[in-house]
């Protein structure tokens, strides 16, 4: 009997230790994946940058990797397009998103708020290729007609598509922030004779500003990382950005070069370098976001 019990206890100890190790392994694997991705992007991104030269690569205004005699590898057009496109999407998406969040948090009756929230959830679930398809068939022709352009596949079309795509995250993060504003602030304002709208915009919104800022940063991250939808509406030409020009983003440069560049060519390695630049952008945004949340938690 004792022997059996001892055996059972040993088996139990054994399985306990084993499961602990299994879970540890899972955790370590998760870290390993991040390391794998970072290492791959950095290692494969560096050679082309070294060959082209960092400054020529980052600030070169011409991308002509297939030119017979003098191929050029400047990604400034992509960087600027990503920056302008993101800024444009934020400029359009944030006001609409913020106002909708305010509507949901303060003005809407409960039922209506539930309906609008469902709409927001659905918008966030729609695949990006579907946004791209509708953008390509509805928005692009509309832009062409309205502005009398030879082609509607422009930075403007991309900005509009991106601004719709970042709306859901801006709305839900801002709404959470607005809902978290202590009731006492709003009461104090009303007791001073402020109207409800004055209270929402002059007290609640400033009190929720760090959360709203986080929503904006999140939106920036989304917009800068989107590839397929804007691939379908931006025309995908390596121009310097202009609102009515066909353009290529950092993400779409990666996606479009991936299918054409021959393995081992400088063009191929330059594509990895573009990915590295995008990765660094995203990491920067991540760091900003993390610092923000940490500050908020402490402050």
């Amino acid at each position, binding site marked *: 009997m004792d022997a059996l019990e001892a055996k059972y206890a040993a088996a139990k100890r054994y399985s306990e230790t084993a499961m602990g190790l299994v879970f540890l392994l899972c955790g370590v694997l998760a870290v390993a994946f991040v390391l794998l991705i970072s290492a791959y992007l950095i290692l494969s991104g560096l050679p082309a940058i070294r060959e082209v030269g960092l400054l020529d690569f980052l600030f070169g205004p011409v991308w002509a990797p297939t030119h017979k005699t003098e191929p050029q590898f400047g990604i400034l057009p992509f960087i600027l397009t990503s920056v302008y496109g993101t800024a444009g999407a934020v400029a359009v998406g944030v006001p609409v998103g913020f106002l909708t969040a305010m509507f949901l948090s303060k003005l809407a009756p409960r039922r209506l708020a539930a309906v609008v929230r469902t709409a927001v959830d659905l918008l966030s679930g729609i695949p990006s290729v579907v946004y791209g398809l509708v953008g390509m068939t509805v928005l692009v022709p509309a832009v062409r007609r309205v502005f009398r352009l030879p082609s509607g596949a422009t930075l403007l079309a991309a900005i509009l598509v991106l601004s719709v795509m970042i709306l859901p995250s801006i709305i839900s993060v801002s709404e959470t922030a607005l809902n978290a504003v202590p009731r006492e602030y709003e009461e104090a304002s009303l007791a001073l004779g402020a109207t409800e709208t004055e209270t929402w915009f002059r007290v609640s919104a400033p009190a929720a500003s760090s959360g709203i800022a986080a929503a904006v940063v999140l939106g920036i991250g989304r917009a800068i990382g989107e590839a*397929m939808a804007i691939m379908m509406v931006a025309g995908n030409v390596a121009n310097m950005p202009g609102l009515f020009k066909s353009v290529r983003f950092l993400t779409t440069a990666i996606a479009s070069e991936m299918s054409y560049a021959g393995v081992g060519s400088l063009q191929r390695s330059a594509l990895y370098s573009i990915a590295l630049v995008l990765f660094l952008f995203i990491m920067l945004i991540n760091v900003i976001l993390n610092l923000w949340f940490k500050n908020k938690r402490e402050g």
Partner: protein
Amino acid sequence: MEQLSLHRRMYDRGLRLLLRLAAALVCALLAGLIGVIFLQGLPNLTWAMLTSEPSVIRNITGILPNILNTVALVAGTLLIALPLGVGAAIYLTEYAASHRLAAVIEFAAETLTGIPSILYGLVGMLFFCQKLGWGSSIRAGILTLVIMILPTIVRTTQESLKTVPQSYREAALGLGSGKWRMIRTLVLPASVDGIVTGCILAVGRIVGESAALLYTAGSAAVLARSLGELLTTSGGSLTVALYMYSMERGKIEVGFAIASILMVLTLLIDLSAKLVGRKLRRN
């Protein structure tokens, strides 16, 4: 009795109107998207298209292989990512004795969530397709997606594990139960709804993903004769097929037909996540 000044009254009315307009715009955008997609998609969606393999020679348009590829990608990814993600979450909330390691893992998970899917696609292509020599294949797609959705699963699992009251754990451990036994019999059952919600969200992301798949799983639309063949050959998901039909082959109507399938899936996924969430709150 004194009245609110005209200026303030206008400000108040104007802002209320603006808030309503913004919300109406958001709803109108969704309604417009759904309308456009279903109006142009549903008429083109035929039973034959859903159940046949495409052939250029015989001029058949079919998306059956793409449907099967999507199912394979969802199933394969969840099969690997679910145990791995739940395991990592359990380690983080129940075991991690060293807070530094836990912080590193959490930071890693957070960082992974922010990385755009096109970068997952690129690294997946570099590592699985080229380095391991698998070429464009469903298995390369699956592993790429595993890395991509792992953080989502870890995070949602962790959140639901944290809602299990500490007193349960203390009671179980106080009775002499081992940690694993306590997790298996108490903690996991109490948080299963949250894990299911996480899975549904993950399914939504996989079904909607395209950038990470285009160059890892590829874009072929051929019916595989065996599971092995399915996993090792190139296969385009529905999203990738949508992209190929509308961008490369100029068959917009097929694109819309696929888009309407994707919209229905999106609606179903959102609905089921809501139902599970509601059940979660009720308990």
